């Protein structure tokens, strides 16, 4: 068994000193740094054109580039070959998404690794990149999952007490709320809009029912929406 494991993970041809642990360390460090970059991007992004897949690509690309540098080992010939292959692929395909580009790059890297007889490094890199992508999928990395519904209603009457009552109801049904919009529409009527994160989205009708049963609440609309992924 040990021999089989050694065959899988320590059989690079012509590799220098290092071995599988070095490859793992390199990929891990690249992933940590990539995730840090992704978080910084998420935290500092302002504006409308936010893309979750782009943030995910920020995490994967350092890993792929680290793998590429490991495989090239400073060889100019490999670098030019890689450039040529990538140019050909890019020329033939219009890559709509950064994530697509990432996968194209990954495929090319794997071909480069196997072709240069760095079998173990290719295997480790394939498992590593797949794990990273699975992690991104599982954690929905890059999504700003703060709210999942928009509640709009009109308050008629004593706004103060109605707001207190509204907040009590929202506390029961929501994990998080944010007053997005408050607009006075009349002498004693106010239109408010909340972004809410429901505790149980499948029981959203109970929230609506609870609001409808209260005096002073009208034009209630609960709009379930996806996270801010693509704008």
């Amino acid at each position, binding site marked *: 068994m040990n021999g089989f494991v050694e065959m899988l993970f320590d059989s690079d041809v012509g590799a*220098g*000193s*290092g071995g599988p*642990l*070095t490859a*793992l*360390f390199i990929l*891990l*460090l690249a*992933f*940590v740094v990539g*995730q840090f970059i992704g978080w910084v991007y998420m935290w500092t992004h302002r504006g409308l054109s936010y893309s979750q897949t782009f943030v995910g690509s920020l995490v994967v690309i350092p890993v792929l580039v680290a793998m590429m540098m490991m495989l090239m080992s*400073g060889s100019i010939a490999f670098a030019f070959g890689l450039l040529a292959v990538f140019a050909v692929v890019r020329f033939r395909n219009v890559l709509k998404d950064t994530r697509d580009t990432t996968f194209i790059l990954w495929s090319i890297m794997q071909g480069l690794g196997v072709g240069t007889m760095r079998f173990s490094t290719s295997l480790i890199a394939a498992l590593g990149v797949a794990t990273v992508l699975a*992690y991104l999928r*599982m*954690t*929905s*990395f890059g*999504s700003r*999952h703060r709210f999942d519904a928009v509640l709009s209603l009109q308050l008629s009457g004593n706004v103060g007490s109605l707001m207190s009552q509204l*907040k*009590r*109801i929202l*506390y*029961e*049904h929501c*994990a998080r709320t944010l007053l997005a919009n408050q607009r006075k529409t009349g002498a004693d009527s106010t239109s408010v809009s909340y972004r809410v994160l429901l*505790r*149980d*989205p*499948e*029981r959203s009708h*109970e929230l609506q029912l609870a609001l409808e049963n209260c005096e002073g609440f009208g034009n209630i609309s609960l709009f379930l929406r996806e996270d801010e992924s693509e704008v």
Partner: protein
Amino acid sequence: MTGGNRIPIPLKHKWRRFRYNAMPILCFIACVLLMLGLWRHQGQMSNGLAEVERKCVPVAAGADGKLVAVSTIAGGLARSNDHNYWALFDRVHEGQVIARLDDSLVRAAVVTLQEDVERLKVELPAAKEKIRVDALGREDNAARHRLNLTVQAEEAEIDVLDRKAQIEADEILLKRLIARLQYNEPLVRNKVIAAAEYQVIELERDEVQKRIDGNREALKEAEKIRDGAQRRLASYSDLADPPEVETLIGPIRAEIRTQMLRIDELNLQIRTLDIVAPFEGEICEIHCWPEQYVRRGDPIVTIAATGVPGEEPRYAIAYVPETQRIRPEIGMVVGLQSRYPGNPRVQARIAQVGPQIQEIPPHLCRDPARPEWGLPVRIPLPDDLRARPGELLDVRYSKWISSKSEPTEPLPGKDG
């Protein structure tokens, strides 16, 4: 915010929120911890290369000439192949003749020398007769006697020269016979050739040896006679030689001196005909083959002192690259590991540090295509590290070795 009972969050959504919120942070922390652990392991990785010292010396031809095939004896038995010359991995002993240069030139020079001596023998009586004819007109007996002594001294000198030339010629012949005997000895033992043939060569060798011994004795006698004649001549130093003696004998004397120098030259050439191994080892490289013409200084074979008992490699030479933040010092503990699988990591101490930064040999660079400069250090090999000369070893200069596991006693080494 207080209020009524909050709706419980279903497990599915709790898990979802855990995945979206907490899991990235936990995974990040776990990856950072794992990365730090591997980073520490990376620090333990070898950051240098050392080469076990090797003794590898090319053996060069001492003179110009053609290489002659000689037998090589490996382990006391002649090799069974058709070739009777050196081959890779042949073991040689110190002083063993590996190759020979063809002695035809030297033999021809000896023959020429002998002819010149004969010519001098002929010229001297002619000069003597001429002098006698001139001296007939003189009444001075003492001058005539001195004249005779001079001629006797020169005759004795020529005789000495003749003996020496004969001895040189016989010594060359003796060497050839000894070589033939060495070549035929294993063939006789294996019954490839008849013992009678071998004995014939032995007899011839003995005869030549006897002749050499006889000539040496005769040489001593001739030298005694020469010395006696010169002593007697010296007693007539107050009398000036007749001018015609100096004029007639002078060229012969000069020719005798020239032939003596030629004998010395031939002696030197004969000594350089044999190419011997300077130490015990194995042939690891072959540069020239028999029947090939070589010049003085051309390497014939390269001998490596490998696997000789008592001469196992004791040191490894490593280079600390300038880019490394390590200043090697005498006594610094380093980690050594052979690249063969299963070899353990051992510790050793730096015994010597080079005086200056120098270029690292390419095969010791981390990237052979990029030249590096470093400080050489010499590391004695521990007893439990088996390494062959020229073998590469992974070296770790990490400070963590010396701080964590610095031995309190001197480490055992092959140099004690």
